[in-house]
């Protein structure tokens, strides 16, 4: 996760069961909107929720899938694809978003890495 931001601490945002497999939810972390995705049973990813193409806060509502080796979400409005590991926008690199760290705590809580500011 070389492109992720340096993490200070972790915020628990929800239980794993709150996310339907292969979909996303939006979490409020330190006043920021973060799109958190559950891929398969246990893999977690997080990127900014704001879609730079449409200026709407909607990436969490996109469809999750793979393109080649990349795991991506498609913006529900512009259909641009974002790499969930890095936040890179495949179609328009200038629209790339930030990737956040996400992990699963033993008690089933989803943790998002909070950022150095």
């Amino acid at each position, binding site marked *: 996760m070389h492109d992720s931001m340096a993490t200070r601490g972790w915020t628990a945002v929800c239980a794993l069961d709150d996310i339907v497999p292969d979909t996303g939810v939006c979490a409020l972390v330190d006043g920021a909107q973060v799109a958190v995705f559950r891929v398969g049973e246990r893999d977690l990813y997080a990127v900014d929720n704001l879609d730079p193409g449409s200026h709407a806060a909607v990436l969490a*509502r996109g469809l999750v899938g793979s393109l080649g080796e990349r795991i991506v979400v498609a913006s529900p409005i512009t259909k641009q694809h974002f790499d969930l590991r890095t936040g890179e926008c495949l179609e328009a690199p200038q629209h790339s978003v930030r990737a956040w760290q996400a992990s699963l705590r033993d008690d089933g809580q989803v943790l998002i890495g909070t950022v150095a500011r």
Partner: protein
Amino acid sequence: MKLVVIGNGMVGHKLLEELMAANHADLEITVLCEEPRPAYDRVHLSEFFSGKSAEQLSLATPGFFDQQGLELRLGARAVGIDRARKQVLTAAGETLRYDKLVLATGSTPFVPAIPGNDRPACLVYRTIEDLEAMTDWGTRSKVGVVVGGGLLGLECAKALRDMGLQTHVVEFAARLMAVQMDDGGGRMLQRKIEELGLTVHTQKSTLAIVDGEAARHRMQFADGSHLDTDMIVFSAGIRPRDELARQSELGVGERGGIRIDNFCRTRDRDVYAIGECALWGGKLYGLVAPGYEMARIVAAHLGALMQRTQAAPLPEFAGADMSTKLKLLGVDVASIGDAHGATPGSRTYQFSDERRQVYKKLVVSGDGKQLLGGVLVGDAAEYGTLLQMMLNGIALPEAPEFLILPSADGHARPGLGVDALPASAPICSCNNVSKGQLCEAVGAGAMSIGALKTATKAGTSCGGCVPLVTQIMQAEMKRQGLAVNNHLCEHFACSRQELYHLVRVERIRRFDELLARHGKGLGCDICKPAVASILASCWNEFVLQKEHASLQDSNDYFLANIQKDGTYSVVPRMAGGEVTPDGLIAVGQVARKYGLYTKITGGQRVDMFGARLEQLPSIWEELIAAGFESGHAYGKSVRTVKSCVGSTWCRYGVQDAVGTAIDLENRYKGLRSPHKLKFAVSGCTRECAEAQGKDVGVIATEKGWNLYVCGNGGMKPRHAELLAGDLDTPTLIATIDRFLMFYIRTADRLQRTSVWRDNLEGGLEYLKDVIVRDTLGLAAELEAQMQQVVDSYECEWKKAISDPQTRRRFRHFVNSDAADDNVAFVTERGQIRPATAKEKRKRSRRIPATVEAQ
């Protein structure tokens, strides 16, 4: 050079195109066009009856006649040629000087000299005006006769039948299509046509047309019998229009036609003749391809004269092959080369299957090495192969009979790989495109049939070559190592149609299962919604249940259309556009309570915009309590059934349009399909509901309903086509059931019925075969599958709000009840609208104070 062209028909126009494309500097062309409009596509003239307008049939691209050096005179007829003074005289009394003159006057329909042939409603079939007259008389007739059972006559008979007339074909010869068919083929064709409800009378010679008893006219035949009919269309052959040439002594054949040499010159070196009016080597050509070839030859000849440089040898006319393949009244018919086996020493092979009504014949040379000709009736799949074998002299296989025999076990059909064709093989004869040119265009990047048509013009005239062009394109792409596929996406190496089949046959109910068995990777935003739609069409399970939820496009996932700012629209169903005052008030109350923007849609219902994700469940709870259901405005599914008031209120209405619209909408609501589906029902032919622009259009008649299909508004409007007429209501519904299920089975992803129909091989006739005549024996199955979907309908919103698991997903934040602070509205004309980026920046951003982190 001053060039005068007499006639702006198909061939005359091709000449103009060729000349203008060459950009000659000093060329001044005057075109005399007797008809009131520039050239149009006579070959597809019959499509006028299925709704194509004169403009759509036009061959002149917009602005074509505005070009420098080109003058078109409409409604201008040439009446004389003064060869000594090099002048053409027009009916208006004008004289036009020429350096070179081209006659492209075509031909006229031949009307046999039968007393009474000039009575009213005795018509011909050649121009748009002729068709207008046919349509006009057609509405006032019950019975129609076509005189002449040739190719054009049968096309004309189809037009009469489609107008709902009881149709007869009267033929002088002993069989139909006497020129192209042998006895066996003619007989099979007749039987098939009679099964379609037409009556064929062969060996009938008409003596007179007099007043009828049961109808407008009576035709009296030489054998003493007679036939009463309301209208008669003569289609008994054509006669070249050579009157100008006769009168100016240009040289005509004994049976008509202006004599020309290999450069299409008449005996006067300054006068050319091309197209159907020209006689070459004792032959007249009544097809467009040889005419186009003549146009190209004259264009090259004139070009060389103007440039005066020694160029490559000029092309010469060398005759044309008259092989044809057609679908007449839904019957495949093909005739190749020497169909009658007239070549001395030739041998024939015949195959006839009386049950399937297929007749095939091959004519081969005495030594059995070369194919000389053939006849195919009922199944002409081998046409392309056989034609190319004949044209290119490809050696016949050991046992040529297997070329036409149904393939039995162990005997693979000796097909003709397109690889076997030489690069010079002419593939599109209308536009003179060879295999080599097609391959070159593919190499230059034309990798779809559309791109290939644009690049080479192949397949853009009669269309007969399209299957072969497609094969060559695919073979060439493969040869160049380019991927040829209709694969859905990188995760599934098959088409939507194949996936549908797999889902049905293997009874697959989950995406994961399909992916594990037939796909790879995780899936994506292409295949997931497509599979979700297939699963819903087949099994109709709740789209938001756990296994399906993650497959849905955002709109389906939240059962609402996402808007540009991330809010949603809410569209309750108002079947047929009918809504009670109480219903309207309830909608108004909801809109007012949640502050939604309200508008009437183009689909006769109310749309409310600006709902936030977390508001959707309670909005729907209130709408459902008021008796509304999901309008599926978000799904690739049935949208609306538009109606007009119909016979209930309207003084012209002949059936209950609103009632039927409501019944149809309630029957098909919730049905998932490859793309959205729109319907409309009109109460009479005034068509106030615009049914002919819909996927399914229903128009009331005195006797029942006419069913139109595959219409479209939107990006590329398309008129719907009549699938069946005068249906009673149960038959109407059964027919729509079949149509929709067949579309769902076979269409590509996101392919509307219009595009699907345009790509459907066999066209409308094939569709009628499958849906109306049930030739594939699918009807019962399709109807049963539809019934299953109808029976398992549930309102998705009702399910969503009553299931706590699903309901919990309708929140903006998983860890807070705060609203999305990125959404902002401003007021306009008394309602909300999304704030622009500039307006948003002006506002202070409200940052939530607490985060409910555990």
